């Protein structure tokens, strides 16, 4: 009796497994994922979001390549993904102008492209982006209010030509100029997205300015670097970052970093992957206008950072 029941159980389990597999193995699209580099928290989190969403739909994970922050490398990797016969490419362009030719080439071969965070100059299927300019403005607003409309601020910049960083900075500068004319920008230096370089840049700001009230670093890595420099110099400076990676959220809780423009990068990746599967199922190949999907940023500070659950931290 017991034996037959066990047998039945195994049989049912097997049946469910097979049924489950046949149900889940609905799609088998080859999707390429080509971020500027895979070594950063943000691009890793996108990758996880993309792969999870693809797996949930029964699609194999994306083919991820590392362009190592070089536009030339990214262009040749785009060619490679095209030659590999990808059905769709999810791309974070290192530069808008430099990747435009590649995006055009892919779409002319019937491969839709979804860009992340940086749009290109040619219309393509979709762009899932944080609102860099708007979020920069949001941070400028926070800084301006906290300083009571008066003070000295510095900017830790991204490399020249890196559009995402440049737009954040533009949003920040434009809002300060418009709404807080008495907040002065006393310095702006490039720290190449890098925490270590940001320490040196911040040290320079601290030495050059007796009074420095706030710093806006255009990504979290650099904000963390600035926090280290400010702490070791024993100076109190408001420090704002951008992206909202896990380590920075923890530093906001500890009061080392003041705030950041948080985006749920898992969700952003998943959104891109879902769009990808939609368009592939629909079979659309030509796009006259880029479908821009904006992921709204959220100003995370000590007061509200606790509301970001662990599952949404990356």
């Amino acid at each position, binding site marked *: 009796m017991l034996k037959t029941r066990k047998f039945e159980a195994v049989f049912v389990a097997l049946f469910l497994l097979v049924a489950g597999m046949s149900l889940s193995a609905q799609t088998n699209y080859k999707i390429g994922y080509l971020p500027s580099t*895979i070594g950063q928290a943000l691009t890793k989190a996108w990758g996880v979001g993309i792969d999870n969403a693809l797996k949930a739909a029964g699609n194999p994970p994306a*083919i*991820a*390549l*590392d362009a190592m922050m*070089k*536009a*030339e490398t990214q*262009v*040749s*990797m785009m*060619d*490679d993904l*095209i*030659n*590999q*016969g990808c059905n769709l490419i999810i791309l974070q362009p290192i*530069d*808008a*102008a*430099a990747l*435009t*030719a*590649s995006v055009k080439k892919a779409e002319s071969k019937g491969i839709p492209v979804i860009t992340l965070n940086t749009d290109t*100059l040619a219309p393509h299927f979709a762009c899932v982006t944080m609102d860099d300019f708007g979020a920069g403005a949001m941070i400028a607003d926070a800084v301006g209010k906290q300083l009571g409309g008066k003070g000295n601020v510095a900017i830790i910049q991204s*490399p*020249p*030509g890196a559009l995402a960083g*440049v737009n954040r*900075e*533009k949003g920040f*500068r434009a809002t300060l100029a418009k709404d807080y004319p008495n907040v002065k920008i006393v310095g702006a230096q490039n720290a190449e997205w890098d925490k270590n370089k940001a320490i040196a840049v911040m040290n320079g700001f601290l030495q050059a300015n007796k009074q420095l009230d706030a710093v806006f670093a255009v990504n979290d890595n650099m904000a963390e670097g600035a926090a280290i420099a400010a702490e070791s110099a024993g100076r109190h400076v408001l420090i704002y970052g951008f992206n909202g990676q896990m380590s920075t959220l923890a530093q906001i809780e500890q009061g080392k970093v003041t705030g950041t423009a948080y985006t749920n990068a898992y969700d952003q990746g998943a959104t891109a992957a879902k769009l990808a599967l939609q368009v592939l199922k629909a079979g659309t190949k030509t796009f006259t206008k880029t479908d821009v999907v904006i992921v709204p940023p959220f100003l995370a500070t000590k007061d509200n950072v606790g509301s970001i659950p662990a599952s949404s931290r990356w």
Partner: protein
Amino acid sequence: MLIASRRRLILIGLLLAIGAALSLLSRSFLTLDNLMTLLQEASQTGIVAIGFTLVLITAGIDMSIGAVIAVTAMVCANFLTYTHIPAALFIPMSLGVGLLVGAFNGFFITRFKLPEFIVTLASRGILAGLALIIAVKDSMGFVSNVYIQDPVYLSFGGTIGPVYIITIVFFAMAFLTQSFLKRTRAGTNVYATGANPTAARLSGINTKRSIYGVYMFSGFCASIAAIFISSRMMTAMPDFGIGSEMDVIASVVIGGTPFTGGVGDIWGTVLGTLFLALIKNGILKLGISPYVQPIAIGGIIVVVVILDVWYKSYAEGQARRSARRARESDSRSAAA
């Protein structure tokens, strides 16, 4: 001579073997599109590597090539944005960037006897900064990369039949440079300058002229590459080429031109660039983690160079032994 050509055959054999393995492992490797892209990539490094080979033959090194690419591209971007000079006119002018930088390097190396590495590293830094300074900026002062639409300029990124124009130019330049090295007196002087500069000078060779010549040619080649890279990408960025020095150096050394100077040739460099491009292209298709890819590329290069060095010393030892045996049997037969 025989040893050199056997070494060459080994490299060709490895190239074919890896190519065959990749064709079996990946369905997308052995396709016309992919092979043409592979050749395009190889040519991009290869054109610069041709000039670099000559520098290496004189026992020098040129670290400024990447930054020459950046400045040449920025000069073109400026012409395109701010002037109406047709591309057919300003492209030859922008090639002057490489020649100028080469002359600058040559001057400091020959006049002040400074180490080649230091001089060219310094010019690399200066040029990298210069590229940012002359980069086209928007109204807020941020670098904004131009989107090139000039049809003449873009034609450099095009194809003739299925073959990219850059590939044709690469092989033509390789052929001409090889002929120069092997068939002209100036070419022989380049070898002599690298093999033993003192002996070369004492035998009446103008080594300074050779040194000026190779650095100017190296810069010129880098400038040519800049035109092709920017027309392929339809833009020019101030960091173009910076960092690509390593690929160039690796290609030339895989091709059998050592750092010690005096030997080497262009066909070796052609094979070396094809080899590097093959590995870099193939590795992307194997579905291995991007973290592992650079390790695999580095590992394969080391194995190839070890094989090459090992074979060279083995073959030379073999040649010495057989020469000794020949001498011994000669003296024995003389005694008899």
